[in-house]
């Protein structure tokens, strides 16, 4: 099993973070705690879904990205991006104008990752034979794959052992460029990511030895750069770059993009909290038979990606209109030899479970800890205020038993202990300072938070 440290794309800017708890409350795996007034992400539990980044009111959560200037090192500078990238631009900008913007940024070749999507889908369909029980689960969304690894380990064998669309596009781009005489070392592949999960997965693939991509670019960053130099009119014809793009490919990353391809008895779910609810049921055998499940972490699929600028519904709208102008996958012809030589590269290694919620490897000790959690829960107020720095009372009880927190972190128990003369008021105050930082208690009229947030 791969024991190397889990790579994460999400980081906390300790200068900006002021411990407001928004992220802590939105995390689907309860991986965030507040320590010394700052959000701290547990690397084992985090699945890089980006919900924390979405919830943060002060942009304190950011993604690690590669420097765009490194493209200069390569003769063939390839940009790969999912079609939602086009979808997020206002409709006054044509695809041609956006493509020209990318060329002006210094790229020499442009590939949308969904071409030729039909090869990957064919391969995904074939992978259904490798699943012995239950539905085939798409490996498309890396946040979902990581969620299943850590929270639903019994379902890892249901995940399709096929790589992601960016792998397909990268292999395809390399193949096409080599035909034009390019050497491997001359090709730089830069992937524009719509979300933190794909950034993490491209950097540290779940079931591959190493990533095929040279650099990863934040979609928000490149959107802003293009808006600065996008031409008012089209000057050159860039349509050759899109000749392998199909209607199905454009809709691929949106809800039902995969199921409408897969057909049979399949279902699509978007939104990580919806996915969690469904996987709970699937694991309990409480759902009818399905052949295929498309699970996407963001609402509206990748159109709702955390690094997109446009509104997710407008993005879907533009892509649907765009798809209608493109040929169906069956009408696109590429040589069968090209297809077969790439399809063999799309098979990934086995995905391993990574359960992170186990209290103790030893069952007797785990049982003892569970009992203590229940005993502690009897003492806690059960209102999940987050005042202790954990997302809810149950999480605090777990932290206490695992030696990561103390019962006296609970602000209610502190009052009780002081009243019962079990704790000095000074001690209770210093406990609060440990969680929330000393500055939190200084009067400050410029303090962030608590001012009609969310209205």
């Amino acid at each position, binding site marked *: 099993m791969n024991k190397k440290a889990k790579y994460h794309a999400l980081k906390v800017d300790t200068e900006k973070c002021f411990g407001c708890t928004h992220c802590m409350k939105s995390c689907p795996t309860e991986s965030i705690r507040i320590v010394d007034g700052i959000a701290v992400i547990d690397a084992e539990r985090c699945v890089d879904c980006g919900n924390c980044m979405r919830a943060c009111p002060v942009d304190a959560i950011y993604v690690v990205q590669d420097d765009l200037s490194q493209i200069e090192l390569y003769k063939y500078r390839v940009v790969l991006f999912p079609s939602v990238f086009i979808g997020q631009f206002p409709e006054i900008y044509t695809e041609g104008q956006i493509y020209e913007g990318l060329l002006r940024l210094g790229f020499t070749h442009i590939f949308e990752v969904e071409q030729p999507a039909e090869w990957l889908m064919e391969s995904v369909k074939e992978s259904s034979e490798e699943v012995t029980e239950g539905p085939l689960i798409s490996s498309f969304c890396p946040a979902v794959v990581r969620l299943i690894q850590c929270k639903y380990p*019994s379902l890892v064998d249901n995940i399709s052992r096929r790589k992601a669309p960016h792998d397909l596009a990268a292999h395809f781009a390399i193949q096409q460029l080599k035909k034009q005489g390019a050497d491997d070392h001359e090709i730089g592949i830069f992937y524009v990511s719509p979300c933190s999960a794909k950034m993490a997965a491209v950097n540290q693939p779940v079931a591959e030895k190493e990533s095929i991509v040279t650099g990863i670019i934040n979609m928000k960053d490149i959107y802003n750069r293009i808006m600065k130099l996008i031409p008012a009119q089209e000057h050159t014809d860039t349509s050759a770059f899109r000749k392998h793009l199909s209607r199905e490919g454009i809709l691929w990353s949106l809800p039902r993009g995969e199921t409408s391809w897969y057909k049979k008895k399949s279902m699509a779910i978007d939104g990580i909290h919806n996915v969690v609810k469904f996987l*709970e*049921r699937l694991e309990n055998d*409480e759902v009818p038979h399905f052949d295929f499940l498309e699970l996407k972490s963001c609402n509206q699929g990748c159109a709702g990606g955390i690094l997109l600028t446009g509104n997710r519904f407008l993005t879907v709208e533009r892509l649907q209109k765009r798809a209608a102008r493109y040929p169906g996958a069956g009408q696109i012809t590429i040589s069968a030899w090209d297809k077969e030589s790439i399809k063999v590269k799309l098979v990934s290694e086995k995905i391993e479970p990574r*359960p992170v919620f186990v209290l103790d*490897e030893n069952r007797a000790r785990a049982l003892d800890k569970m009992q203590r959690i229940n005993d502690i829960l009897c003492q806690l107020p059960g209102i999940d205020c987050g005042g202790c720095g954990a997302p809810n009372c149950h999480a605090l009880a777990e932290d206490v038993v695992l030696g990561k927190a103390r019962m006296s972190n609970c602000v209610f128990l502190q009052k009780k202990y002081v009243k019962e003369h079990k704790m000095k008021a000074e001690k209770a105050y210093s406990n609060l300072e440990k969680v929330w930082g000393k500055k939190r208690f200084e009067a400050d009229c410029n303090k962030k938070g608590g001012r009609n947030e969310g209205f």
Partner: protein
Amino acid sequence: MALELEFKITGGDFSNAGKASSQIKKVLKQLNIDAKSIKRIVVAVYEAEVNVAAHAWEGEVKATVGENDIQIVVSDRGPGIENIERAMQPGFSTASKEVREMGFGAGMGLSNIQKNTDELNIESHAGEGTIVTFRCFYS
């Protein structure tokens, strides 16, 4: 050392049938029980919960989570099972039309419990209720 868990079930309340099995599943996962055993247990508990919701007036699930096994007692106050042997047969059901229309009552409940457990005992008194006791050993 064993952990006791208790859940109430109301007859006819299918929306909450499944709460006990979900909670038990969470506990078992944290205890590092293997996925296959968890699945067997969860399926058996869920079937028992649905049985209470479908047939009885009210009932409860008591789980004793031990180091090597789990014991579950599902007791209800309800009409009881007239012929236990017949009720165990796959496909046999006395579920009402309403229950069947909701997608339950296919007659697989008890046989599914038997399939997924290591020990099963059913005790029933007509007009009073039923006590289903089962045990699963972790592999």
